[in-house]
């Protein structure tokens, strides 16, 4: 499959790139690493007139920490993230999560901004145009019906990014720039829960950086992923947990559990977290919270994996992750 025809634009500055997007609203696609977008183009899921490359926007690269706020440029690749001393030191969980993205061949190209803007996935959508043409156009492609649920005008495609869960658990924000200015959104609010338009970024906007507080006061976080082929696949389900313990009392002061692969956005299991807040972490209590987390997700059969299986795996992963971070033996 060849790529469709498009005009390639390589703006030299962010302002130039944003002007291009504003002038040609709805006819552009922004390309950073391209690992997700090129496949989508080959499958004719998008047919942009212009492909706007961010390659020349050097200021969008790099990682820095100022006043206990870690800022990561959107064009930082997974490989750069994994190798960055600052991230290894302050956010080892993020290194772990980045290592779970695709294979080394993807990680050398794929960027953190692209990963957060990852499109939702579905067995009726991630297919060639020939394959898709056998059915009426689905909702995700702009049609009326969802082939998974048979509902009208609703898309249930699954969000399966690996970095968003941990970054949400660590209270990260994203900065979106457009020709009219910038806005900063908590990453949690960046996602819409609408399979068709998974995030808030408009056609005229570019995600420029990710900011988060450098974990302090013993906050730890990690990400665990279950997938079919350990080497390369998207998650069946992935679970990120950020945990802060109250040291003298040994109770849980702060806990966030965020699950990917389980809905049209990263899902926060807040009822499960509430069960453990202020409590001493014990095996039985953690198991109970894990069962609750599995009930908080609403997986839809957008792949050959059944929702029931996703719930079972979620429960296991939540239990395992909290035990690991809390240092609790099985």
């Amino acid at each position: 499959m060849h790529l469709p025809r498009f005009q390639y634009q390589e703006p030299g500055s962010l302002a130039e790139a944003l002007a291009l997007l504003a002038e040609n609203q709805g006819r552009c696609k922004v390309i950073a690493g391209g690992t997700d977008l090129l496949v989508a183009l080959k499958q004719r899921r998008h047919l942009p007139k212009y492909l706007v490359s961010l390659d020349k926007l050097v200021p969008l690269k790099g990682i820095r920490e100022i006043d206990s706020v870690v800022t990561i440029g959107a064009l930082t690749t997974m490989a750069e993230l994994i190798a960055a001393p600052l991230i290894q030191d302050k956010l080892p969980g993020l290194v772990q999560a980045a290592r779970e993205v695709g294979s080394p061949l993807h990680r050398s190209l794929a960027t953190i901004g692209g990963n957060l803007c990852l499109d939702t996935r579905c067995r009726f959508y991630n297919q060639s145009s020939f394959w898709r043409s056998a059915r009426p156009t689905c909702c995700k492609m702009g049609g009326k019906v969802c082939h998974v649920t048979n509902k009208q005008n609703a898309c249930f495609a699954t969000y399966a990014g690996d970095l968003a869960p941990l970054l949400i658990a660590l209270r990260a924000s994203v900065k979106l720039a457009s020709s009219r200015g910038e806005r900063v959104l908590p990453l949690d609010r960046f996602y819409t829960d609408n399979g068709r338009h998974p995030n808030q970024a408009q056609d005229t906007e570019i995600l420029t950086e990710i900011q988060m507080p450098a974990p302090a006061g013993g906050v730890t976080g990690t990400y665990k992923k279950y997938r079919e082929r350990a080497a390369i696949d998207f998650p069946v389900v992935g679970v990120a947990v950020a945990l802060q313990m109250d040291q003298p009392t040994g109770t849980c002061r702060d806990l966030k559990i965020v699950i990917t692969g389980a809905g049209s956005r990263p899902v926060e299991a807040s009822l499960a977290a509430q069960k453990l807040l202020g409590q001493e972490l014990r095996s039985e209590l953690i198991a109970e919270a894990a069962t609750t987390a599995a009930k908080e997700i609403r997986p839809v059969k957008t792949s050959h994996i059944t929702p029931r299986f996703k719930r079972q795996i979620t429960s296991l992963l939540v239990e395992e992750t909290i035990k690991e971070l809390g240092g609790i033996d099985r």
Partner: protein
Amino acid sequence: MKKLIKLTVNGIQREIEVEPRQTLLEVLREDLGLTGAKKGCNQGECGACTVLLDGQAVSSCLVLAVRAHGKTVLTAEGLATDGQLHALQQAFIAHGAVQCGFCTSGMLLSAKALLDRNPHLTTREIEESIDGNICRCTGYVKIIEAISAVAQNKNS
């Protein structure tokens, strides 16, 4: 509209006109006649099209050729120097790490990218380095043995 790109392929400076929609893989195979990088899935899943772009292993089917402007590309054809096979190629032959051969060029380049960066490799790191290269014949054992042998030789 075609674009003129300049890049170094296997040590040779090239200037070539490409369509923006051509991938690096297509340009290497169809315009430069370098068929060492294979077109497998063409979706970045199989690793048969692996090349080194500025020393980093990438799936060349996921790289637009225009993005390779000013960069250095190494394909399997560039591994041997002065008629002498690269240590990895010799080890692959010695360990019988090749069956049908379709994945081999990608395996070699993924392994080279890792060895160049870190010559002290554990078996786990070797396994991870070829995570993105799918082989349907060998079961990977002999490939990992071949790469280990080269890593050990470098260390001693």
